[in-house]
């Protein structure tokens, strides 16, 4: 009980930190504070949080273009992330990567990725390394429903299954491959059906229920650590925003949009209700979590804004290891 309370509160904190970071990033981007792309994770916070709650620092993740949430859930530091969004020399990648390429190899974060579906072979390669070295570490590949149509998805699931690699494939099915609805881009409702083709377990779960995600991830990760091979977990969710900031999402049915953003469906509101209902926290506790997250994000923004730009000579460094 105490453990469950602690776990749920911890996951709530992570979700709030992601949401606060993302809201701030959206506002800053709209205000022209930094260039490039912002692919917001708003609405999908439960997935990264529920999965990464079961990981150690020595485990690996491969993230996506919509990667801020994964990075925060795996322990990424908000100030270094924000500085990277700003393209500052103090950022995670010294300003060379930006939003779509943030990585922290020491934390097992093998990078966000600007190519849809490209993280899956890389995560599977990391899992290969975990097994080769006889560790019990695992790798997680996050990807979306759109990426599940790519060759990299099929090749990675096939290879991971025949070699029984310690990797968990986490599909964040938000219903949209940019503007293309799931019903338009694949002839199935459950991406997890595709696990059958590779002889591995596949489950579809509510992607806005952080406890359900954590439980499914726990089982899959245990299985992977034991050497029993990969699992495909499909988390059904909805992205609150457009594909990127600037995309109004006109292709969405406004009724669906309204429903998914309602208190009944929103992943964060649902955890809050649960925490109150179980008497794990009161409103003041929740407000404090939010205030703390805002303070942390404000500090990250300040850090980013006060950091220097990279020196122009940095264009030429880090291409090769010498």
């Amino acid at each position, binding site marked *: 009980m105490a453990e469950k309370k602690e776990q749920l509160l911890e996951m709530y904190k992570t979700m709030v930190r992601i949401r606060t970071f993302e809201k701030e990033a959206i506002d800053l981007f709209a205000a022209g504070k930094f260039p490039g792309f912002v692919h917001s994770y708003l609405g999908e916070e439960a997935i990264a949080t529920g999965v990464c709650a079961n990981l150690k620092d020595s485990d690996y993740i491969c993230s996506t273009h919509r990667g801020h949430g994964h990075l925060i859930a795996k322990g990424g530091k908000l100030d270094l992330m924000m500085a990277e969004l700003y393209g500052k020399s103090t950022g*995670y990648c010294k300003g060379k*990567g930006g939003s779509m390429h943030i990585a922290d190899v020491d934390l097992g974060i093998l990078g966000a990725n600007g190519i849809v579906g490209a993280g899956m072979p890389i995560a599977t390669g990391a899992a290969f390394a975990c097994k080769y070295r006889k560790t019990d570490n695992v790798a997680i590949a996050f990807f979306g429903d759109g990426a599940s149509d790519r060759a990299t998805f099929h090749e990675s699931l*096939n290879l991971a299954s025949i070699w029984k690699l310690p990797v968990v494939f986490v599909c964040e099915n938000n219903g949209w491959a940019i503007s293309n609805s799931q019903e338009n881009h694949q002839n199935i409702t459950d991406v997890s059906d595709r696990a059958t083709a590779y002889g591995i377990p596949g489950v579809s779960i509510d992607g806005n229920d952080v406890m359900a995600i954590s439980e499914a991830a726990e089982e899959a990760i245990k299985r992977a650590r034991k050497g029993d091979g990969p699992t495909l977990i499909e988390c059904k969710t909805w992205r609150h925003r457009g594909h990127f900031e600037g995309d109004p999402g006109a292709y969405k049915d406004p009724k669906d949009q309204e429903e998914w953003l309602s208190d009944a469906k929103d992943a964060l509101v649902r955890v809050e209700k649960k925490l109150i209902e179980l008497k794990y926290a009161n409103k003041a506790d929740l407000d404090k979590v939010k205030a703390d997250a805002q303070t942390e994000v404000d500090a990250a923004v300040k850090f980013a804004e006060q950091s220097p730009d990279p020196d122009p000579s940095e264009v030429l460094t880090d291409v090769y290891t010498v």
Partner: protein
Amino acid sequence: MQMTYAEAIRDAMRVELKRDPKVYLAGEDIGVFGGCFGVTAGLLDEFGPKRIVDTPISENFIVGHAVGSSACGLRPIVEIMFNDFIAVCFDEMCNQAAKVRYMFGGKADVGMVLRMPIGAGIGAAAQHSQSLEGLLTHIPGLISVIPSTPADAKGLLISAIRDDNPVIFYEHKQMYGMPGEVPEGDYTIPIGKADIKREGSDVTIVTWSWMVQKSLAAAEKLAAEGINAEVLDPRTLIPLDKEAILKSVAKTGKLVIVHEEVKTSGFGGEIAAIVSEEGFDYLDAPIKRVAAPDTPIPFSPALEQAYIPSEEKIIEAVKALF
């Protein structure tokens, strides 16, 4: 000792497999089958299936997984059966392997080797015969190694395996059976150092891979006619030993570039541009290029022989400068 080019490549891999437990091979039919051209024959028996890994026909995965496993500290040597198939896994080389280090601000290394056979002359037609070594030189972050003798193949491959960058290693099919003297045991050649295969004073022929052998034969015939050609093999295209090329052109005053790639956008154009920019005053004649015509590679031996740059064409190009 005497070894063929294929044996020298195998010997290099054997030396490194013995020296470093992090080194492993992965690719299609490299195990039981011994490789499509027999290059990895016997390695499965010697090192076992953990180190010599047969993969399904999944080129995206073969290269993509190596990005992940090398970022996690292993040393993969992966094989793509024919250079032509790079088209299938271009993203993994161009957008992942090449860029990880830079995008992550220098905080990850992708120390992997990608081996690929190149070259026409065995009637393999348009999709199994290309020499595409110039293609990937356009992507900063990759190293391109292209040996023309058994000894160079061994020494450069060992250096490539020990290098912390992604290295592409081009092997010419026509030379697999070619014998030569090769040092035993640990033998390295620094990456980025050209080698003068034949000293001369009248004209510089810059060439690589199988065309080195053709150019050497052409040089002998030219010598009989009183033209003393210097044959310079850069051995690695990236990094390119510009100084050696400029020094040779300064001595001879004439430059002919010979490669099996098609002429348009072949790497010869880059060398011609470098010499024009940095060595124009050394030249007392226009730069000449001998290359394959801008066509796909034909099947019929009669057509294929007309396609491949010949000794006669090299001789003709050189003589045109006098």
